[in-house]
């Protein structure tokens, strides 16, 4: 496989994207059922057994919809933003180790930096979409998204420094291997890892625009936020990108703090999937329980609590690394 890195990477990416898209699409079904259980209602039941074919029906519907570009919209930016959004989100998966060994599409030695930087690029398509729509709700949503990304990138990066310091490597595979045999960073060393893990999850919620930090797409205030003017598959791409972002964030959290593929019994992909999907479901749980913060409150939380606490965890982790 290493003789043909391009072939390996390309094939891996193709399989990975297909599988992830499917998982993200069916996680929408899961979320609808899950939310239904939380709200005393059945959720989708009629389309296929237990509503399982609902995402397929949604997809088939979306690709048939008429495609309108609003009259005064910037048509180039308007049309390029949704695929670009999905692309930037998917790019983060390129350096991700799925199982022990060489199970990674592109084994970069600065993998974690790559993931973070390409993940933060997603703000740009979001801003493009909001600006190009020529819609005031969309513009406000885009502004909020930009402000949010600028603020939450800081604690997100700082929390990612904790596993980097503890493992001594930027390579994702090394970080996971450093946690082998149950030495998960969320548990050991006690303190910085656990705090950083919680902060990382919260910041990922903000990055992926999930409640309680979903202010760029606040349905009750901005109708549909940045996607107000989008329809059909373009809207579908944005929607899918949001779910993909959440999914990737859960897998990142699982591998950076919860030991990735490590677990009791044989190590492998199954542990990673289990951990990732559990985190993913946890994010749904949070979403369907909490209300939403106001934009300024949530910036205040970021700068007053998240940033100092994450700095503290980095310091503690560094001291641990040097002296313990």
């Amino acid at each position, binding site marked *: 496989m290493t003789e043909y890195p391009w072939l390996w990477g390309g094939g891996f990416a193709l399989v990975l994207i297909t599988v992830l898209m499917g998982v993200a699409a069916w996680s929408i079904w899961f979320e609808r059922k899950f*939310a239904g259980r*939380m*709200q*005393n*209602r059945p959720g989708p039941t009629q389309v296929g057994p237990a509503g399982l074919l609902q995402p397929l029906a949604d997809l088939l519907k979306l690709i048939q919809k008429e495609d309108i570009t609003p009259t005064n919209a910037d048509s180039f930016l308007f049309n390029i933003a949704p695929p670009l959004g999905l692309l930037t989100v998917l790019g983060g998966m390129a350096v991700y180790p799925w199982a022990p060994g060489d199970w990674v599409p592109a084994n970069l030695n600065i993998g974690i930096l790559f993931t973070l930087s390409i993940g933060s690029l997603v703000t740009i398509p979001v801003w493009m979409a909001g600006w190009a729509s020529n819609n*005031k709700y969309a513009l*406000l949503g885009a*502004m*909020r998204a930009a402000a949010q990304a600028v603020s939450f990138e800081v604690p997100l990066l700082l929390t990612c420094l904790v596993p980097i310091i503890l493992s001594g490597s930027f390579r994702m595979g090394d970080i996971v291997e450093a946690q082998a045999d149950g030495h998960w960073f969320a548990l050991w060393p006690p303190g910085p890892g656990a705090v950083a893990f919680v902060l990382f999850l919260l910041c990922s919620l903000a990055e992926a625009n999930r*409640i*309680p930090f*979903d*202010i760029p797409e*606040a*349905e*009750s*205030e*901005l*109708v549909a936020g940045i996607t107000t003017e989008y329809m059909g598959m373009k809207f579908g791409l944005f929607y899918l990108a949001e779910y993909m972002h959440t999914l990737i964030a859960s897998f990142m959290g699982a591998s950076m703090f919860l030991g990735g593929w490590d677990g009791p019994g044989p190590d492998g992909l199954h542990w990673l999937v289990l951990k990732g999907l559990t985190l993913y479901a946890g994010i749904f749980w949070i*979403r*369907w*329980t*909490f*209300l*939403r*913060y*106001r*934009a*300024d*409150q949530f910036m205040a939380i970021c700068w007053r609590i998240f940033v100092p606490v994450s700095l503290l965890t980095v310091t503690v982790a560094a001291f641990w690394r040097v002296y313990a």
Partner: protein
Amino acid sequence: MAVAHSEEAHEAPAGPVPTVVRPWADPYLDPETYDPEGDLMVMNLGPQHPSTHGVFRVKLWLDGEVCVKAVPYPGYLHRGVEKLCEKLTYVQIPPIVDKNDYVSPYINELAVNMAFEQLNAVEVPRRSQYLRTLGAEMQRVGSHLLWLGTFAMDMGGALGGGASAFMHTFRERETILDCFELWTGARFHYNTLTVGGSRHDVPAGFAEMVRRTYETIRARTIEYDELIYDNAIFRSRTEGVGRVDAKLAMELGVSGPILRASGIDWDLRRDRPYAAYGELKINVPVRSAGDSLARYEVRMAEMRESIRLVLDLIDGIPEGPICALKPVKLPGAFKGKAGQAYVAVDGPRGELGTWVIADGTERAYRLKIRPPSYHAMALIPYLAPGSTLSDIIVTLGSLDPILGEVDR
């Protein structure tokens, strides 16, 4: 039994209620004079917006996300009810006013029928008075439940925690509608009250059903507090948001829970009793903070008080006839006396009045509904300036407007 959390009043925010600073809030000032460059963004919130609780439009001048000036435009649901009431007879009017405040139709019917009764000096039998009180209190709980769900949805979105609260309150509201369906045959728009009493007596098994329903809801109000009130996000979104000055509120004619949350202890049920309220003891919850959280507390306390009244009343309804007059079905069968009357009842949103001028025929000469929501919406130009778009949504939700009533 566990005590609900919102029983205790929260600390009033320090400092006086910020009074409106002109000229930013001056509803009459042309924005041209303070925004000659056109730097402000003009945003039309509504008439079709998920959080305007109907078709209400507010034109906002936004500086970034902070509102500088707000001009409301009601009237997108103006259905000419008052003109229609001039054309219809006294018998035909109650089903029309049902549709004004479609969340508490029973109390609407009560208001117009009481005005007609005062006009014609009709004495309503005691059993009917109690039934009316029972119906009004049952309806108040249903109305506040709907408000609670939509208020949570204003903060949590249709795809989030707010929707969960909404689904839970609607579960309870459905059971209340079931009780009314058993009683009058309709989920809402009952047309059950008539001049002199009621059309429908309570059916067999009704008392048992109501007791079961309302005891369940009483237990569930604690769950709502746990889900919503105890949530730090909810507290931070509502505390100090949309503070209503009591003086301004009284000048605008704002009534009901909004006024009571601003520290004015006034409830028509207690202070000018009608129906059977004179024989009941009513605790009126009052808060002094005047913000959205205080309005939440007042409404929740009112809801618990209404549940208590319903559970007290359901066993103590006196026997007797339910209508003083023979209930009429022909539209022209009832002729009123000439004169004028104004009767106000305390609806879920405040003073719901009917002003009627009669000329001695079977039709009213002029009938005006005095809707509490219309007065509450007049607060918007005073509350919106200086707060962010998100806060305006919360404030609007906490005022609990029903647009059918605002526009009529």
